[in-house]
Each structure stands twice: as C-alpha cells, then as structure tokens.
C-alpha cells in the first residue's frame, strides 16, 4: 500500500482515530458550513456531517435522494462498530468534498472518479438510522433499543412487500444532483461490504423548482404541491417538541438528540389518477391543483381555516389535508416533519408506470404522532389511488461530534 493511499484513508477516518472534537458543537451542521454558497434550490453547497443532530433531517431536501436499507451481516459487535465507523467517516469526507489523493497507477483508484478529480460536496447529506431488528440477539443490543422503536406494522390500506420493507440500518442520501448521490452510495458501500448487505433501495427526486416563489412547495406525481403544512424547522422549540428525544426522559440515555424516522414507499397509480375529474382530485386533496391553495383560497400557504368550515362546505371532511392535519390545539403536538421525494421505478408486470412517493417523516414518538395521523387517514378517498408497498421504522441517533466520532457511537459506549 502506498503512502499516498494510506494518507487518504487516514483522512477518511478508516485507519487513525482522529481527535474527538470538543463539546461546543453547532445545533446543526448547516449552520456552520464554511462559506457555504447557496445552490439554486436554497440548499447549501456544503452541509457539515457532524453536529448535535444529524444532517439531512432539518435540512431542506435535496433535488435527488436515495434511501437504502441495509442488513447487518457483520459477524460480531466489533465488526459492526467498524462498519458504522467507516460509514460515518466516509460520509463526513464526501459531505466535505476535496481533491482525490494521488496514487500509484497500479492500484485501483481510491474513488470511482465519477465526479471528477475534485469531489464537490454538492449539498450531500448522509443520514444514518437503525431499525428495530438491529436490537435483536445478534449484537447484544437488545437492552438498548429505543423504547418507541418497533418494526413498522402493516396498516389496513397497505400491501407491503417483505422484500422492500424493514432493515437493520437505514442510509438516507440526498444532494443537489443525482450523480452526487449515486457516487456517494457507491463510495459508502466500499469499506463496509463485510458489515452490511443491501436489503432494498429507492431513488427519489424532487419536483422541479418552478415557483411562483422560492418557498413554493414542489409537486408530487399527482400534480399537487406536497409538504405545505410542515412545521417550521427554524422553530427550535417546535422541533424539540415534535422531533428530538430529550435528555432525561424514559428513553435510553444514548438516544437523546435523536429522532424516529418513518419511511414509506407509496406507489401512486398514476394512470388511474389521470382518469379522475379535476374537481374530484381537488376534493380528495383539499387543495387546488394549480396554486396549491386550500380550496376556496388563493395562495398556497393560506390557512385553510378548517375551524370555520366544520361541515366541509369548502374542504370535504375526508380531504387529505384535513385528515392529515386537522389544525386543532389537540393535534398540534402530534405533527410530524415530512420529507418526501417522488420516485420512478420504470413499470410493472402489466405495463403500468411504477411511480410514487418516497415518504419520510421524523417524529419523537411514531405511536403518538405518525400512527395517529395514519389512523385518521385510513380509508380516505385517496387510498384507491395509492398503495404503500414498503418502508420501515428507524431511529436516527444524534449526530457525530466530529472526526473520530461516528453516528451511533453512544449506543456502543459502555
């Protein structure tokens, strides 16, 4: 092995243990991104991997995403730790970007080179989370399972495919461009082949930024704006209430600063949807398709004033927006932070487009938040046009403290 390669690997944190960073950490990677120029989408060009909370949660979703569920195949706890450590180290380097190391020409290059000799960070975030199955007997983690982490149940309108559901470790990648995500996944898997096996993956993309304002929500594949009702990520108190596991609660101490991540692959039957009248489509959603305004309104972020419409004169009582977020004082603390991407997987066995929504939600208690919403939505008119086919429940722990630390390290601390 050449010196140059060794140096590269060391910088990637695979060989040497870097000094543990101090306690004074930013609340979020994004906040301290060094001289981060903004991309067109408003997502910074460089998003620091480390931070009190992992990047890629509060961060605005990038144009492209890939979510990969991995099964742990590490023979023992030490190999599992090494794999997680390598994932964090490589993700940190990729998120930072930089020049590829010089190498001897007879060695396989240390990087695939698909982004050229200088890797631009391109707003890459890599978020790592754990599924309930990681806490089984294999690695002796059973006693440390986050209390609210279970395998995702099947809901009555689901048609879950076991091959696209659950997983020990979830890796969520997002960036401004597709090739950055593709590159990152390829590089991240390289050092962990003996620790993790691919279980399922799903690629997502955002609807284009077509205005009318920079804040306008992107469109999903039903043609409607999606994510309008999200809580504000800049509201730290709301995020503490809705997302972050607090210190000193009933959760294991290592889980503080983390959050529960719900992933759902939701097939959308787009051909069928396209055969439905516009008025019926808008009634099912509760919004206008063109502007995204609540029915009866003019602009996207207008309050639908459900309180003034108890009989559904404006917005039908079973419209999606009303069921998903009734906007009452009782439901305010049950909101979730949604992060969705469209997906397009080609077509199925009978020639129908296989498209849908890669739905991601963060919350502090899936039972109290996500599932309550899910039960409200059960049987909504839209269920005929969508089929949840996969996904899972995961726990995204707090962020790494800096080079040398890694996502999940507190779980293994003795």
């Amino acid at each position, binding site marked *: 092995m050449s010196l140059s390669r060794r140096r590269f690997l060391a910088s990637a944190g695979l060989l040497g243990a870097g000094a543990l960073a101090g306690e004074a950490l930013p609340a979020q990677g994004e906040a301290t991104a060094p001289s981060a120029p903004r991309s067109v989408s408003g997502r910074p060009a460089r998003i620091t991997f480390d931070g009190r909370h992992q990047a890629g949660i509060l961060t605005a979703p990038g144009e492209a995403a890939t979510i990969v569920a991995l099964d742990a195949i590490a023979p023992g706890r030490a190999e599992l730790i090494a794999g997680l450590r390598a994932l964090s180290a490589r993700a940190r380097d990729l998120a930072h970007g930089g020049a590829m190391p010089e190498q001897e020409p007879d060695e396989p290059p240390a990087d695939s080179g698909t982004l050229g000799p200088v890797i631009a960070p391109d707003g890459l975030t890599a978020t790592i989370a754990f599924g309930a199955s990681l806490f089984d007997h294999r690695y002796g983690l059973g006693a440390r399972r986050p209390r609210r982490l279970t395998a995702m149940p099947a809901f009555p309108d689901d048609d*879950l495919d076991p091959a696209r559901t659950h997983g020990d470790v979830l890796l969520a990648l997002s960036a401004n461009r597709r090739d950055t995500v593709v590159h990152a996944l390829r590089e991240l898997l390289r050092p962990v082949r003996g620790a993790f096996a691919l279980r399922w993956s799903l690629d997502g993309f955002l609807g284009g930024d077509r205005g009318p304002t920079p804040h306008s929500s992107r469109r999903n594949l039903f043609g409607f704006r999606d994510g309008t009702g999200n809580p504000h990520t800049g509201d730290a108190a709301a995020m503490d209430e809705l997302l972050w596991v607090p210190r000193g609660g009933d959760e294991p101490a290592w889980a503080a600063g983390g959050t529960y991540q719900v992933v759902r692959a939701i097939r959308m039957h787009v051909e069928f949807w396209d055969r439905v*009248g516009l*008025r*019926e489509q808008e009634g099912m959603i509760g919004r206008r398709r063109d502007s995204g305004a609540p029915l009866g309104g003019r602009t996207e972020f207008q309050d*639908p004033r459900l309180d003034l419409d108890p009989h559904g004169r404006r917005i039908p009582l079973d419209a999606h927006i009303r069921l998903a977020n009734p906007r009452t004082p009782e439901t305010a603390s049950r909101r979730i932070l949604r992060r969705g991407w469209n997906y397009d997987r080609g077509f199925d066995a009978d020639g129908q487009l296989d498209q849908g929504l890669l739905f991601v939600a963060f919350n502090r208690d899936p039972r109290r938040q996500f599932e309550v919403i899910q039960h409200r939505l059960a049987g909504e008119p839209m269920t005929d046009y969508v089929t949840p*086919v996969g996904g899972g429940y995961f726990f995204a722990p707090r962020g790494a403290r800096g080079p040398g630390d890694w996502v999940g390290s507190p779980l293994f601390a003795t």
Partner: protein
Amino acid sequence: MIRRRLAIPLALVSLLAGCGGGATDRHAAARPDLPAIAPGAVTETSRSLRIAGTDRSAQDVATAAAAAPDAAGVRSELAPLPRAAFRPPIARWRAGSRREAAAFAAAVARLRADVAAGAVAAARRDWLAADVRLARIGAAYGALGPLGVALAGRPGRLTGGVSSRRFTGMHAVERALWTARDRARLPVLTAGLVRDGARLRRRIAAMAVSPLDYTLRAHEILEDAQRDDLSGEAAPWSGAGLRVTAGAYAATRRVVGTLRPLLEGRGDALEPVESGLRSFGAELAAVRRAHGGALPSQRALGRRERERLDGRLGQLLEALAAIPPSLETRLPSAIPSLP
C-alpha cells in the same frame, strides 16, 4: 366504495349553501339521503356573474341550452339526469350480481368438499371458478366492505404478512393449495369461505348503491382488475390474474349494458366504450384460442400477448373513465371563498 364517499360532503354543500337553483337542486333536496354525482368543475364566476340585462347567470343559460337535443337528436352530457333514471340499471345489476354470488357460494361449497376429500387438483379448479365468480359480481374498490376483506383480503395489509393468523379468505386458501404450505388450515379456511359466501347474496341485496357509485363502477371494476389482477399481485400463487380480469371484464360489460339506455343519444362517451370493449374482448378470445380454449396462467403469456392485453385494457379504461362525468345528476356547486 371509498371513492364514492366524496359525494356526501358535496351533497351537503349544496343543501347547506342553498345555492344554485333549478330542477337539479330541487331533486337533490327532495332526496337528501341520496348523494349526488361527482361534479366537474364550475367556476364561481360562471355561477355568480349575471348576463347583462337579465337575472340569469352564464351557468343557468348553459344548463338550459345543454338540456335540449341538437339537430341529430343527441343531448349534451352537460344536461343533468334525473336520479330515478338510474333505478332500473342498478336493479338489473343487483339481480345479476346476486346470481353470481350464488354461483360463488356453490363454488366454495364444492371447494370445501374437495378439500375435505383431499382432492387437491379438484380443489384448485373449484378455487379458480370461485375467484372468477367473485370478480364477475362487479363490486369494485371495497364496495363489499369488511365482507370483501374477509373474502379476498391480501397478506400485505397484515403485520406478519402470510404468516399472520389473520390471513384468511380466498388468498390464504390459494396459497395453501398451490404451495402446500399450511394445508392443515384448509378445512377451517374453506369453512370460513362457505360462511362468508352465504352472507354475500344478502349483502348485495342490502347494499346501498347510489347513481354515483354505479357510474363510477363502470370503470372502477376494471381499474381494480388492472391494478390487482392483471398485474399478478392479487393471486401470485395460482396465476389466476388473467382469468379474474376476464371476470371483471364480464362484470363491466354487464354494467355498461344496463347504462346503455342512458348513454345512447347523450354526449359521445358510448362509442369509444363499445369499441374498447370489443377490442379487449377480442384480445381475450385470441389468447383463449392460442392456449387451447382456456385462459392460461399469467406466467404462460407471451410478451406480445401481454403487451396487447395491457394496451387494450388501458385504452378501454380511458374510454370508460368518460362514463361518470357524462351521467351526472346535477351540476357542481361553487366552493365558497376563504375569508
């Protein structure tokens, strides 16, 4: 079933708002228990703006004009239909569906007997016959409610999937018959089918079917079949999807047949539907001929056969989707503005 619930709040809108006027709304007010047909878009402007010098809105004038047949005797599909016009078609459909339900009940009774006798090959034939009968009833999208789930629920809706103890009904029997797993459950599972099969006729006799339900069914039976059956998703073990799709096709022809008197001489929805039905039917017949006189398992279909079936069905569905909007019983009401 889910889809038609849309109509109820819309009917409420028109009652509470008291807006509009004319024969259509009076009719809706006279029968508040019956939801109205899902409307197309009408802008607020067309309702509220008055034509200069008159007290009539553009919408009033358009509605009146639409109700009159043109020189060729064809009425515009914008003219609302009286709800009573749907009673004979729905009654005919119900009678036919009860006959199919009786045939289903007989098929699952044979299935139970053959299972008890240990005759697996015969039981498989019974199962296929029963599954096709279920499709021929033509109750799309959960119209049968919990009974439909009990009869044909799929494992993907259950935590634990096929290993769940709550996995029962036709597809649990299918899995046991074709994979030889959990065969010991067959007596209990088939007894459950016989019990639920007996309830089916009563359920069909009793279930409320509104004009909106019924016109939506014209395309939803086959939408359902395309999504679940022709895709191979619903019956993965037996490969019965194509046969079930043919059953759904027969049910759709029956629905369209009952609606033909309403569609004739009204708009232009009927002709593409008839031609789509003919062409998909011809494709099914061609596949049947090519496979020795019976529809094969989906796995036995060639690529060309698949592509033609998918394409003809898609074309037919596009045509069928024009039926509900052309058979509206009233025009949509305006959505009140947000303050």
